């Protein structure tokens, strides 16, 4: 169930597929009576104008069937058609992409028809055909990959992705470590607070992301901006999620500080520090207290105890957490998508997949980006497994 889509993804990345191609091609028909039938014996033609709806994929074995008006005298039929009673059946063969053609039936008026004219459109032609499947044909291309790597913003996207992943992972781990220290103390109301601290992780991403969006809204009604103005911290509202960067002068040097990307990272830290906290706390509570008592007797200060006793014991779980969180953060899509939609310099690789596949509706290009994502991940996994074989589970 997982491997098959993976394979399919690589397959699609080599195909020139857009979103519209997913609709199977069909035959579009337009039936019309050409000419006037006014007196008995007048001749006219019924014209079926047929078209393959798709400009990319062909249609095989097209067969058309239609019922002709009862009272018309049939003069001639197309060579590919056979007439049985009033039903015409045409074997039209294969249609190339975008092919159009006419099928003509010569008719003559009878008195019965003139008394009660019948519209030829009253009966729709029925088609039977085998549409070619764009996903399974043998049409391959490297165009998708060329487009991905040549895109002017590809390296920006990759950089944003890495910055987001590293900062988000490290931030969540550090905050988790800090929170775990706090939760390891005994104080009244601890279990309530622990429940509260876990809630960002448990709540649906869409709920908390939209709450953040409204909280950071730069327009009227944005709580945080109103708060900052009220406190006199800023003069006007800051567009936290829409501003790409501000310049910060520091010792005469000018830095570009990415605003939106940082806010997205803070959200990521906010949402995932509980997971790190949970695991680190569990590890801390399983540590034996003897060693701390011994250290206490030896006169080690609290900071020394943390530095030389707790931290080394926590390194294992921290490494596992780092590995997992790093990869998950790299994979993260919905958080950024819901907060900024990938605007203002927050477009990471995963958001780019969506952007290419569904916003630009070029499925093939999206799949190509997805392949890049997967390759990068594979590199990480190999590196991680190489350097930390014993940390695994």
């Amino acid at each position, binding site marked *: *169930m997982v491997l098959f889509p993976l394979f399919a993804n690589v397959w699609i990345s080599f195909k020139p597929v857009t979103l519209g191609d997913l609709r199977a091609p069909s035959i579009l028909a337009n039936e019309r009576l050409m000419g006037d039938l006014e007196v008995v014996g007048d001749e006219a033609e019924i014209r079926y104008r047929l078209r393959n709806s798709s400009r990319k994929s062909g249609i095989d074995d097209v067969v058309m069937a239609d019922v002709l008006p009862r009272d018309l005298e049939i003069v001639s039929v197309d060579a590919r058609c056979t007439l049985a009673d009033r039903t015409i059946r045409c074997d039209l063969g294969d249609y190339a992409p975008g092919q159009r053609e006419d099928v003509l039936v010569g008719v003559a008026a009878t008195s019965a028809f003139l008394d009660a004219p019948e519209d030829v459109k009253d009966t729709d032609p029925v088609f039977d055909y085998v549409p070619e499947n764009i996903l399974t044909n043998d049409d391959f291309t490297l165009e998708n990959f060329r487009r991905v790597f040549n895109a002017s913003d590809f390296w920006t996207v990759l950089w944003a992705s890495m910055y987001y992943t590293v900062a988000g992972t490290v931030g969540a781990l550090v905050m988790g470590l800090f929170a775990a220290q706090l939760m390891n103390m005994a104080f009244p109301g601890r279990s309530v607070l622990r429940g*509260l601290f876990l809630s960002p992780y448990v709540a*649906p991403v869409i709920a908390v992301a939209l*709450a953040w969006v409204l909280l950071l809204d730069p327009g009227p009604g944005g709580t945080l901006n109103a708060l900052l103005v009220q406190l006199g911290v800023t003069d006007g509202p800051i567009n936290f999620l829409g501003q790409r960067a501000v310049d910060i002068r520091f010792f005469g040097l000018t830095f570009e500080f990415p605003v939106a990307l940082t806010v997205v990272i803070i959200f990521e830290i906010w949402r995932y520090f509980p997971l790190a906290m949970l695991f680190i706390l*569990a590890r801390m509570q399983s540590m034996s207290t003897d060693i701390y008592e011994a250290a206490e007797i030896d006169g080690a200060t*609290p900071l020394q105890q943390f530095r030389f006793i707790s931290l080394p014991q926590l390194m294992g779980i921290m490494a596992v957490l780092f590995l997992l969180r790093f990869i998950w953060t790299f994979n993260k899509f919905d958080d950024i998508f819901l907060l900024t939609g990938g605007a203002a310099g927050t477009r990471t690789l995963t958001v780019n997949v969506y952007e290419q596949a569904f916003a630009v509706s070029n499925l093939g290009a999206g799949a190509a980006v*997805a392949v890049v994502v997967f390759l990068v991940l594979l590199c990480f996994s190999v590196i991680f497994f190489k350097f930390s074989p014993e940390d695994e589970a």
Partner: protein
Amino acid sequence: MTRPGNIFFLCLGFGALWGAIWTIIVTLLALFVSGIAFQPQVTSGALAGLVAAILLVWHRPARRTPALRMLSGLAFVLVLAAVSGAEPLGQPLGRYAFGQLLFVVILAAAVVQSLHITARDLGPGREKRYNVEVLCLRFLKGGGLVAFTIAVALPFFVMVMMSLKNQQLLLSNPLDFSIDFGLGAGTLLRSYIELFSEYRFGTYLLNSTLVSIATVAITLFFAVPGAYAVARLRFPGQKFLSRSILLIYMVPMIVLVIPLYAIFSQLGLRNTLWGLLFVYPATTIPVALYMLQGYFRGIPAELEEAGLMDGLGRFDVIRKITLPLALPALASVALYVFMIAWNEFLFAFMFLDNVDLYTLSRGIAELNSSEVPRQHLMAGAVIATVPVLALFLWFERFLVAGLTAGSVKG
């Protein structure tokens, strides 16, 4: 009276800091609750905290009685009022008088209590490095607790409060979170009532519940035997299998979306709940396998061997010995999978077009437009959050034990 030493002077600093921190927090709280534009008097607060600290920490720990703490609090209030020009919260005292009084008392109590806890058993004389660190860490931890609590709670607080207001109030004064109970429940909860009556949130809720529970059932059905096999039975490729579970765990969802979208579109599975029931278990089974196999490994094999010796079949051993022992792990896995399915956004967003099939996440995404007032949006968020949060908090102990048992071993 001991001579004041380093602890005393540190406590003065912490007194000022606590004074400033609590002044900001309590003033903002007052602002939120009343809607009046209070301004934190940070400098006055810091100064008042300093004075309160002098009074309190000047005495030895044993003599810091409740009476002394009250006195110190009183000093805080007086200094705060004096330095801020009789406007302790940045507004003339006459306005909202009783409320202001209440908040100032809360503020003083918070400052003195924080200070008292920070300096407990210490001071005012000179102490060694050990106790200096204890003191600093206490302040750091206290400040950390306050900061974490606010950072975590603020978005949820805003979510709930916004859902109870109306668009006009929200836009005119975004800092006013006062609730007028005089309006009655019907007006306060109007967003919720409209969501259920006009936006079909009842259907969404039902869909989400169905999908989540079915996902849990399917996941456990496949994961329990699978995890048992990986953990207990010996067969060729076992190592490879248990490793690849971890690897599958790391495949990004977004990579799966495109092919599944393409294939499901052509199979006609895309706009159905069945489609989701294919995808969700596929993403949760590896997680469940990983967690369960860790737990199964932790159950002593001797117990099962004893069962086998006594003539039970392998199947009965699993049913009568292993599963009852693994019940906490099963519960936590079930809860975790439920949470994943309930919160899932990406696939629901991509696959579902039919309003009758929307899950909660998809339904809320639909509300996220400029035409829908934001209190509806937040009410939707609350509706989606409350069930899963309640369930999680209820079973939290279970979950923590099960989640961490799989991977964390001594």
